[in-house]
């Protein structure tokens, strides 16, 4: 029954992907720039989920704890979708000049502050950095999937050291990635907290999705938690609460510092995101990723109810998508319903494809083990 339902979901996702990719192609012929802008937003959201899962798995490798053992399987499936997430960025790489202002051919038209950054923000160096980041993540994902495999007697000490080094390298890679692909969409804007904010945001999204996948299969509100008289669902919900607060703290700090400074090139980032309709998205974001979970996670009854937990994780995941959309899309938006149609097409196309892969991997964990061939024990 379960298998059948998953198969049907995979079928639906693939159908959505086919329809979405077709309309993406049609839109792409009509207006490449608009299509790429929409595609990039969705692709960054989808790639962020495996990256967040990678962060959680390496952190759990260092801290241990029952919550992480419970969500390990869904997180492993998420990490295994990393190659597809990286592939989603390839169409954008072909026409960087349409999306990134600093990559446009007319360098003289750029403002002075941006021209000074061109030593870093130029196409060959950008491609090199992306290649290095992708290589780091693919090898790290390969290693982490090996360390977290359950069926082999692995050396925990080695895994702990690996996770420590991996987390540092991953942190650097995410920083470079967030600056390159998100912050440099508006090259005048600078925020030193941004990369950390993106990393925290990825963790929130990945954990919420892992919670949904976990709760969809098992009744986690009656499974035992880490301590006596505590259900597993409470532990997992508390971790999600912590991750969510971390994100809220960083997001608020960026706002506080920029609001306090009130410098034109910085506050501009917030000005365009709180006008022309984006402010409604901002309210939705605050409600879905802060206010509602903050109130609900305080209640033990919600944490012990299956429907409440699923609903809450769904709201947080939707909030995470709004977060990405709100941060990235306004920089690339020219206005008009046509562009929103591109967004829908990209979400259906890339999202459907990615979901189909995720369903497949979640249902067949043995495939992940095959992908990550076990090291030969001498």
């Amino acid at each position, binding site marked *: 029954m379960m298998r059948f339902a998953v198969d049907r979901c995979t079928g639906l996702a693939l159908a959505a992907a086919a329809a979405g990719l077709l309309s993406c192609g049609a839109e792409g012929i009509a207006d490449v720039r608009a299509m790429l802008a929409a595609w990039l937003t969705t692709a960054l959201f989808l790639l962020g989920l495996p990256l967040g899962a990678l962060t959680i798995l390496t952190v759990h490798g260092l801290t241990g704890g029952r919550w992480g053992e419970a969500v390990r399987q869904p997180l492993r499936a998420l990490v295994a979708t990393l190659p597809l997430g990286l592939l989603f960025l390839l169409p954008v790489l072909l026409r960087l000049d349409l999306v990134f202002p600093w990559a446009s051919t007319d360098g003289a038209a750029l403002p002075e502050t941006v021209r000074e950054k061109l030593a870093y923000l130029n196409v060959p160096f950008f491609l090199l950095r992306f290649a290095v980041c992708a290589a780091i993540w693919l090898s790290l994902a390969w290693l982490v999937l090996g360390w977290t495999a359950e069926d082999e007697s692995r050396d925990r000490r080695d895994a702990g050291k690996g996770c420590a080094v991996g987390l540092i390298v991953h942190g650097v890679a995410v920083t470079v990635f967030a600056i390159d692909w998100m912050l440099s969409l508006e090259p005048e804007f600078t925020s030193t907290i941004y990369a950390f904010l993106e990393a925290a945001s990825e963790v929130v999204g990945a954990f919420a999705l892992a919670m949904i996948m976990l709760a969809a299969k098992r009744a986690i509100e009656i499974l035992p938690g880490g301590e*006596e*008289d505590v259900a597993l669902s409470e532990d997992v919900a508390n971790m999600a609460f912590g991750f969510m607060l971390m994100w809220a703290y960083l997001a*608020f700090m960026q*706002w*506080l510092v920029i*609001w*306090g400074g*009130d410098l034109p090139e910085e506050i501009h980032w917030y000005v365009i995101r709180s006008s022309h309709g984006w402010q409604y998205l901002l309210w939705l974001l605050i409600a879905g990723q802060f206010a509602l979970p903050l109130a609900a996670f*305080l209640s033990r009854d919600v944490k012990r109810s299956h429907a409440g937990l699923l609903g809450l994780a769904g709201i947080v995941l939707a909030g995470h998508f709004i977060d990405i959309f709100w941060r990235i899309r306004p920089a690339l938006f020219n206005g008009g319903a046509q562009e929103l149609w591109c967004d829908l097409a990209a979400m259906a196309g890339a999202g459907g494809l990615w979901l189909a892969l995720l369903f497949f991997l979640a249902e067949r964990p043995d495939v992940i083990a095959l992908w990550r061939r076990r090291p030969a024990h001498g």
Partner: protein
Amino acid sequence: MSLHGIIAVFADPEALTEAACTMRARGYRRMDAFSPFSVRGLAEILGMPKSRLPWVVLGGGILGAVLVYALILYSVEIDYPVNVGGRPLHSWPAFAVIAFEAAILGAALAGFVGMLSANRLPRYYHPVFNAGSFSYARGGKFYLFIEAADPKFRKGVTKGQLTRLGAQSVEEVEA
């Protein structure tokens, strides 16, 4: 000197739990238990009400935030309005941080005071210290205390029941 109640000494937590359970089934309601560490399920058997401390802490947090925010508002709007770099007098992003800190302080204080008052502390005297078996030298066991004010309380009968439940010793406690 009036009789406050009867205290029975048990050797292990299981015996205490079982005795408390049996006595409650017999209709005793005004009971208390003492143990060197927390015994699982004992609070439910004794009919302890669910802790209301979380609500006290929440109230303390909200009160702290509101009070401090009101204080800031009063000082910047009424008492000493200063234009800082053209920012509005009511600069909520900066004030939110202080209000948050005050919420934490208020919650912590409310938790501390609420815990003390829920346990009726500080209290310098409790009748149970009159019991010889509860003394420093002979203490460290598991105790079930039944108040004389309990409607089911009959001195001889209650003592006999406790002894049959396996109490090491049963003692009258003066108020």
